[in-house]
């Protein structure tokens, strides 16, 4: 059981990890895994990211999950938080897109434009 003080410590620690107030130390790849995301095929995408990070021994990158972001037609949907950079949202991606995103964005630092949203 935690005390109020400990809850506040967890808050500060996790805010640092997630980069809420200041840039985080790690890149985070977050896959939308609510029922709608899973139904449109987000689980293989999540697994592919996990596998790619592990196999390529990429350090300081974590793969996480989140709930529904609200925009059904773009599922599966992935957000990439690189410390100090604006968030990049990838839409309608399948597991086959993962290696390119890892290579060009996560390792190369350049978001893969063809998987982001374009609008007028």
């Amino acid at each position, binding site marked *: 059981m935690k005390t109020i003080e400990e809850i506040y410590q967890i808050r500060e620690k996790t805010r640092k990890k997630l980069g809420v107030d200041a840039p985080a130390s790690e890149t985070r790849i977050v896959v*939308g895994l609510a029922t709608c995301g899973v139904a449109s095929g987000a689980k293989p995408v999540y697994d592919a990211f996990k596998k790619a990070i592990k196999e390529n021994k990429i350090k300081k990158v974590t793969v996480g999950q989140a*709930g*529904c972001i609200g925009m059904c037609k773009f599922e599966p949907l992935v957000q990439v938080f690189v410390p100090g950079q604006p968030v990049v949202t990838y839409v309608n991606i399948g597991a086959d897109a993962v290696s390119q995103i890892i290579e060009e964005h996560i390792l190369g630092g350049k978001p893969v434009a063809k998987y982001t949203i374009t609008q007028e």
Partner: protein
Amino acid sequence: MSKNVSSVTSLNDTAFYKNQYRIALRNCGIIDPENIDEYIAYDGYKALIKAYSSMTPQEVIDVIKASGLRGRGGGGFPTGTKWQFTKNSVGDKKFVCCNADEGDPGAFMDRAVMEGDPHAVIEAMTIAGYAIGADQGYVYIRAEYPLAVKRLQIAINQAKEYGLLGKNILNTGYNFDLEIRLGSGAFVCGEETALMNSIEGKRGEPRPRPPFPAVKGLFAKPTVLNNVETYANIAQIILNGAEWFSSMGTVKSKGTKVFALGGKIVNTGLVEIPMGTTLRTIIEEIGGGIPGGKKFKAAQTGGPSGGCIPPEHFDIEIDYDNLIAIGSMMGSGGLIVMDEDNCMVDIAKFFLEFTQEESCGKCTPCRIGTQRLLEYLEKITSGNADMQDLEDMESLCYYIKDNALCGLGQTAPNPVLSTMRYFKDEYLAHVRDKKCPAGVCKKLLKFIITDACKGCTLCAKKCPVGAISGTVKNVHTIDQAKCIKCGVCMESCKFSAIIKG
């Protein structure tokens, strides 16, 4: 390609998100719902700590009252007042319940909250327990949401481990425990008294009110029941204050509302907008308009209990009272957009089929009334109704509204009344001219082969019932007596020679 096209790298930059303001959905899609630390990082359980350490139960209720928060499940009853009634009731034991039996076809915001931010519900229910003096809570979830059940259970376990649920929470001396109870596929269990019967292990039939749940609810004890989205607002109100919340919205409807946008709209999805946003903004800006350049015909809100918003009210500011005034209701937040291809009589029939199927059978006005109502609609859509039927159907609607036992029955006629109010001409077309203007009602539909027919014989080959005759290179004809209106001929014709008439 036009030069205005720009690449957007984040969803936050889209028109879909710019017009939204997220309170209930604030963490959805942001945090890992299976990790309590991430919820805590985004001010999770801070409101609970604030309530325990610096507010009396009455002060908590006063803040909720002053915020103007109203029930997001549909009825729109002021949440603070509900809590006050339950606090004032005398009882050796009290309960806090959460209605997560989201059953309206087309609404899924409660699922999104439970799958994306389950701790928000747990924290709010614990605060409610503190405010009314309860140490036990139940979340009633429909079994059709397995992932929501799983994530909520994980969240409850984590909260227990951290001492945020259970005995002597965070060493403050307060107790609150939470249990999940599953529904088993009965829509009526979304009604508050039916829900409580179901938790008690009985048939999910509603009870007459009074006594209200605040006096005699679950296991005959004073009970507060709110829905998921209502709870998702509580912690933010405690943290940011009543004034912050009541600064958003209209005079009588404060804060935001989550809508599930669906139907004939470009951007289907979940949107959270300040109360008072116009339907035009929701459909044209956030929703991206209607696909295929079709014309807007109506927006349906409130599901089987609600009604339609016609084009003349396109600029209506959406809030509880404005929707009631035009014969619809907020409901749980489904917003289905319809275009010129939808038949409004058919829509009314669709909802009546639903409520008829889900009527629990306890009271006669609902059990038999909805059946009779559905029969009228079937008569109309098959071209067998006369003007007297229309009149009789309308008076039956009012009879059911006035006499049914619970909300399900009392609101069941709304889809009929609302479509009759705004789309009377469509009803008249079905009844008087035996025509369905939108070409939906099959029995009134006729497929006709025009002179554009080249006599290729394809349609005659495709017709599953052999209703089409004609010789090669001559215009074919359809035997209307044989035709079953399946539309295969129209789909297969390469010359667009077959039309609906």
